[in-house]
């Protein structure tokens, strides 16, 4: 057992955990924040995506005890049914989901992707490595590829993200 304390959605949470507990299981089973989903538990689907220290990661492939003092944002921290984050609202508007199981991961990823483009981080499809990446459909699709949606809402998700990005710009 080990203790760890980190901030989740603005609230400091102290936990006593089996060292084997992943950040994902800490969120779901100990903090009961089940918005973050376990799709594969092996980094192969992206359903567990959360934002830690401003960066999106797969919470299934990291131990909770490795996040002492860090800041975690989950889907619950982005918005509520009554007060949705613009990305959440855009997903509803564009029907960017069906079964909903990959959706929290898609949304956390999408929020982080826009920041990554803004920060000038290139991607596999960026034409000129020495120029700032642009917010194109091809860029979004490549950057979102770590989030699998078996229901196949990709086309609608791309539209939802594009709308939010446009609103931001």
């Amino acid at each position, binding site marked *: 057992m080990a203790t760890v304390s980190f901030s989740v959605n603005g609230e400091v949470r102290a936990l006593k955990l089996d060292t*084997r507990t992943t950040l994902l299981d800490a969120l779901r089973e100990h903090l009961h924040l089940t918005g973050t989903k376990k799709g594969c538990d*092996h980094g192969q689907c992206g359903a567990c995506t959360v934002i830690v220290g401003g960066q999106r990661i797969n919470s299934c*492939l990291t131990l909770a005890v490795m996040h002492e003092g860090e800041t975690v944002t989950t889907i619950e921290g982005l918005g509520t049914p009554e007060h949705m984050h613009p990305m959440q609202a855009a997903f509803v508007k564009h029907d960017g989901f069906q079964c909903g199981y990959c959706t929290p991961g898609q949304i956390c990823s999408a929020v982080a992707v826009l920041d990554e483009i803004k920060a000038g981080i290139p991607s*596999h499809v*960026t034409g000129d490595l020495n120029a700032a990446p642009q917010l194109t459909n091809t860029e979004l699709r490549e950057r979102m590829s770590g989030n699998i949606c078996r229901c196949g809402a990709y086309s609608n998700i791309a539209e939802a993200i594009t709308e939010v990005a446009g609103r931001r710009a």
Partner: protein
Amino acid sequence: MKSFTYEKVSSPAAAASAVVSNSNAKFIAGGTNLLDLMKLEIETPSHLIDVNGLGFDKIEPTSDGGLRIGALVRNTALAADARIRRDYGLLSRALLAGASGQLRNKATTAGNLLQRTRCPYFYDTNQPCNKRNPGSGCAAIGGVTRQHAVIGASDACIATHPSDMAIAMRALDATVQTARPDGSIRDIPIADLHRLPGDTPHIETTLTSGELITSVTLPKPVGGTHIYRKVRDRASYAFALVSVGAIVQRDGTGRVAVGGIAHKPWRVEAAEAEMPHGAKAVAAHLLEGASPTKENAFKLSLVERTLGAVLTEAKG
């Protein structure tokens, strides 16, 4: 996942002493491969030494015009570094072709080099695997082998190394710096880091017990056109069937390393002399001695054709 104790170290000396005093310890940084394997009990450390606090997270110029990349620099940060993008485009491209944005945010430079094969028989603990359980046999041989090695394999193992980044590092002649538990440090040319499987496929690198990668150094830029071409069924978030990393100079000379075909990044320096003569000549030399299966023989022509496309692209 077996139980383990966990400690976070803040100095190389503490890391060394931790690894010496725990017989079955492992270093953990990004954890994206290690934890994956620990869940399946393919890796079963009894003690984890978290090295994220060691400060090896900078990219610094070296005195001879190269760059020293800290072992803990994340794949995203490395790919996005302006100097890497400008002078070592191949490395940036290879990194960005790998995994997903989430994984690249966590995965480290050293961890990427040390990631283990994605052979499905290695991953299925019901199956014999000489890598996982030395002497048990290789279930992949005679099985489903579309993804497997076509060259440098052995009767004990036909697994491939999955890293994209390592292909670029190999073409760039990177050097790996390590620290051993006794405090000694050494430089390992990237060509000597990964081993072919031979009779001991469970020994994947030339690192010794408790040896820790501290940085990877790139020599001064060599110019040329940098291209990394990864071929896969799925357009993203997939391991390579074949990948070709190349640096091509204006006169047609250059370097080529190939991924997806062997137990280590595959580069044959002598084959590079053929580069001005085209892909066919290079591939013939590069793939000399290949022994593919019926299912993966396509990789031979795929390497040649991909290299051809890369050389054409380099000409502009």
